[in-house]
């Protein structure tokens, strides 16, 4: 199937059309989370914990309640008992009950007629805390005698069940063969320990929502989210309400990167709207986004790799600890499944833990768990290449997985593009370009599974032959364009005749989040199937019009035509012809599809980074960056490149400057864009991209997800470039100037 796809010619797929929602986004019309205002709307604020770990002894809201303009003051007591809900951790994260578990944890909330009043009222709420010792790092959390964050917690997946309270929420292991034997067979062994900090997705739009609920319990929520169906189900769990009573409309979304796949404000706004009997709008400040939304796990890891002198891997071993934040749920499983996924390792042992600390509950961040794991793994592959004196790309090619290889996480790969990416990197002019004095070059591989999951789509034919596609994935980066391209390709009509609507939870079929790099793959598949459903119907209508059998009609270039050799004296019918006549042939034409997509194609990438180092200040500048990735098939190449470039920028930020800086009490000291240093325009070079297209055999056009893989390789690519430029392996991120200068100075001494 894949070979046939390679040669397939497309009419519109692969073209760089203007996105349908574009004009509204360049003129300021597009409505994001905070852009909706309703009559009588109140503004809500959250009172947040000043402690990283404390028991709430009492909360007195009476002064706040008494203030003019205050319509609702709520605390955890206004929510169903967390333990009685389907998701106690989520519930307790939305609003603290007996304990606060991180600095910034929601404790109470106020809705009032102005922000000034709401803030004043929140400040008037008196909370009596009994401060507890905060647990602020993986090492601290796992130490003997550590302060226990949750007395009920036991380690899931432990080899031996224990009834001792612990901060280790989960243990996991992946293994094959005999790793000790593998190391015994190795000619060369490299080992290293690595650490990565807590980082944030850094979407530019803070979380925002507007909620209303009536006396009958019917609620409407407008919010910035990657998945409004998930907002519906999660909010319904926290509030123990019927999903049928909750309608969620996704606003345009100003970035998410995984961080908007869960809920924070929505249930709070619903409860307050119920009390106030007025709409309530809530928006986070940037500071709240940093302190109280879900960042990505800090990690510690140990990697050991053995190989024959020709480079053939004999054994790979990893231990990776993920900080989960205040509740279980760090990206342990995907991280462990990714760390050595690109390689054929006859023997491996991969272990790890998910550990509670008194920091915000982590959320997904683009290929969750993989950047941290593969940073460590790919740094050690670099060390192995150095030790073996083998070109780092050749070493990877020698050991690369390909179609039929068994992944470390179990199954055999179907067609994948890892070797194609490596070969493209080897041949890329940026790989052999002469480096300037003081520069270094690094390469690294990236991998992400990509997800399938559930999607729905409807395709409506309008009376003039134009088409409306209705789907349920918030458009975070141009997916309306991709959906329209795929519908246009199937239907054989111009892209411009298609409109795409991201409908609310009552108007679109159930659809999982815009996440997991799944939208173009899974929802795209639903759009393709719904379009094919339309084509079947169009052929039926044409057959009825012509008075011939349906089987005698074909759909070609947007027209119904009789099959070759059919003796019918008829003119081809365009989509517009059939649509205009639909009332006489059976009524409106609409197609639909719903599916649980299987077989998402894994995405591989190879990145090249060049860096320049100021040896007197330790400052690292990325001077050139090349991202090569297998997209399967790029439906809209500009937006595929955009994902690769954006992921590269986030990965470079993670490598060089981004980190949560905590004081001894567990208070984040840099909760703003001034000191949480995401890359700015002048920090980066142009980011060269090369899209590889090895079709995913399970998708009609060969699509693989592309959104997450791009952030995986840059961490190690940059770190390996710094290693190349300095001769020093710095094993902790970020490679900030003080850390690099310290290493340079230490090496000199």
């Amino acid at each position, binding site marked *: 199937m894949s070979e046939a796809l390679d040669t397939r010619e497309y009419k519109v797929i692969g073209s760089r059309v203007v996105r349908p929602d574009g004009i509204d986004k360049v003129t300021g019309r597009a409505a994001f989370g905070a852009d909706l205002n309703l009559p009588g709307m109140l503004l809500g604020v959250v009172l947040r914990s000043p402690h990283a770990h404390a028991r709430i002894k009492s909360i007195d809201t009476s002064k706040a309640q008494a203030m003019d303009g205050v319509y609702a003051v709520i605390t955890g007591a206004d929510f169903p008992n967390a333990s009685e809900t389907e998701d106690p951790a989520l519930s307790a994260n939305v609003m603290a009950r007996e304990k606060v578990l991180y600095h910034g944890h929601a404790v109470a909330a106020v809705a009032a007629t102005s922000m000034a009043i709401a803030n004043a009222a929140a400040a008037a709420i008196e909370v009596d805390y009994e401060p507890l010792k905060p647990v602020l790092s993986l090492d601290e959390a796992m130490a003997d005698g550590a302060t226990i964050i949750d007395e009920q917690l036991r380690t899931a997946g432990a080899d031996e069940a224990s009834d001792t309270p612990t901060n280790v929420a989960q243990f996991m292991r992946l293994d094959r063969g005999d790793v000790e034997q593998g190391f015994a067979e190795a000619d060369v062994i490299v080992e290293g320990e690595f650490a990565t900090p807590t980082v944030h997705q850094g979407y530019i739009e803070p979380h925002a929502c507007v909620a209303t609920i009536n006396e009958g319990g019917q609620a409407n929520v407008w919010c910035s989210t990657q998945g409004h169906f998930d907002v519906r189900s999660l909010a319904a769990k926290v509030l123990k309400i019927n999903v049928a009573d909750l309608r969620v409309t996704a606003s345009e979304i100003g*970035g998410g990167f995984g961080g908007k796949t869960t809920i924070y404000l929505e249930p709070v706004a619903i409860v307050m709207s119920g009390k106030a009997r007025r709409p309530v709008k809530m928006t986070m400040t940037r500071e709240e986004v940093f302190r109280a939304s879900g960042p990505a796990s800090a990690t510690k890891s140990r990697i050991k790799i053995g190989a024959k002198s020709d480079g053939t891997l004999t054994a790979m071993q990893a231990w990776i600890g993920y900080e989960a934040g205040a509740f279980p749920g760090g990206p342990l499983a995907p991280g462990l499944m990714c760390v050595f996924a690109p390689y054929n390792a006859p023997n491996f042992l991969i272990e790890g833990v998910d550990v509670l600390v008194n920091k915000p509950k982590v959320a997904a961040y683009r290929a969750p768990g993989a950047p941290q794991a593969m940073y460590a793994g790919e740094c050690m592959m670099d060390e192995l290449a150095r030790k073996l004196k083998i070109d780092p790309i050749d070493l990877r090619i020698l050991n690369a997985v390909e179609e039929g290889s068994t992944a470390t996480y179990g199954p055999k790969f179907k067609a994948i593009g890892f070797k194609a990416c490596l070969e493209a990197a080897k041949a890329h002019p940026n790989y052999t370009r002469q480096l300037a004095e003081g520069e270094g070059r690094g390469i690294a591989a990236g991998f992400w599974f990509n997800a399938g999951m559930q999607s729905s789509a409807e395709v409506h034919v309008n009376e003039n032959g134009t088409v409306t596609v209705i789907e349920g994935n918030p458009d975070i980066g141009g997916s309306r364009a991709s959906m329209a391209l795929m519908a246009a390709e199937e239907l054989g009509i111009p892209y411009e005749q298609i409109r795409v609507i991201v409908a609310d939870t009552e108007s679109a079929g159930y659809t999982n989040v815009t996440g997991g790099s799944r939208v173009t793959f899974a929802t795209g598949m639903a759009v393709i199937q719904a379009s094919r459903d339309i084509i079947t119907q169009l052929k039926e209508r044409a057959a009825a019009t012509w008075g011939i059998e349906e089987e005698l009609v074909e759909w070609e270039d947007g027209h119904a035509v009789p099959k070759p050799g059919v003796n019918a004296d008829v003119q081809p019918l365009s989509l517009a012809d059939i649509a205009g006549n639909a009332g006489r042939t059976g009524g409106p034409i609409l197609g639909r599809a719903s599916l649980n997509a299987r077989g998402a194609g894994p995405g591989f990438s190879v990145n090249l980074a060049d860096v320049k180092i100021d040896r007197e200040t330790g400052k690292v500048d990325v001077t050139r960056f090349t991202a090569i990735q297998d997209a399967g098939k790029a439906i809209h190449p500009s937006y595929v490149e955009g994902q690769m470039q954006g992921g590269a920028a986030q990965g470079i930020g993670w490598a060089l400057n981004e980190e949560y800086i905590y004081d001894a009490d567990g208070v984040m000291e840099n909760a703003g864009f001034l000191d949480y240093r995401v890359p700015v325009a002048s920090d980066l070079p142009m980011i060269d991209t090369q899209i590889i297209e090895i079709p995913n055999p399970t998708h009609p056009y060969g699509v693989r997800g592309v959104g997450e893989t791009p952030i995986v390789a840059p961490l190690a690519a940059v770190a390996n470039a710094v290693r190349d430029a300095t001769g020093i392996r710095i094993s902790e991120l970020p490679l900030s100037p003080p850390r690099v200068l310290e290493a340079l100075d230490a090496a000199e001494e």
Partner: protein
Amino acid sequence: MSRTHVTTTVNGERREFLCEPQQSLLDVLRDELQLTGTKEGCATGDCGACSVMLDDRLVCSCLVLGVEAEAKSIDTIEGIATDEGLHPLQEKFLEHAALQCGVCTPGFIVAAKALLDQNPDPDEQQIRYWLAGNLCRCTGYDKIIRAVQDAAQTMRGEAS
């Protein structure tokens, strides 16, 4: 709280509003004048999503008081397209796919227009430094820089 009456010009139109003395111009634009195209990303002047022109000078509207708008002229994203259609920057942002989520886009377009109005032929580094106060987390800036370069070329009357 006493509210101050302010008369100002927004996108060439005379506008009046009432605001509290400490209220920012950003809040006034969004909440009092319903011009929600100007976005809040940080409210501390670090992200540029709220960029507007104040008497022809590029500023973060989150760092201007609403009361300071008295007798001044303010231009926002809503005023950039004209009766003739989209501004070349808007056209080129679309053509180059220089936006993904789009929330930073109004600020980038306002800021880039301010650059091209004073320097019709900036080089890549000038564009990057001029736009360093506009954060974009989706694109890695590459396509934004190219869109600005291309728009500049179009505005200079050169074929792209």
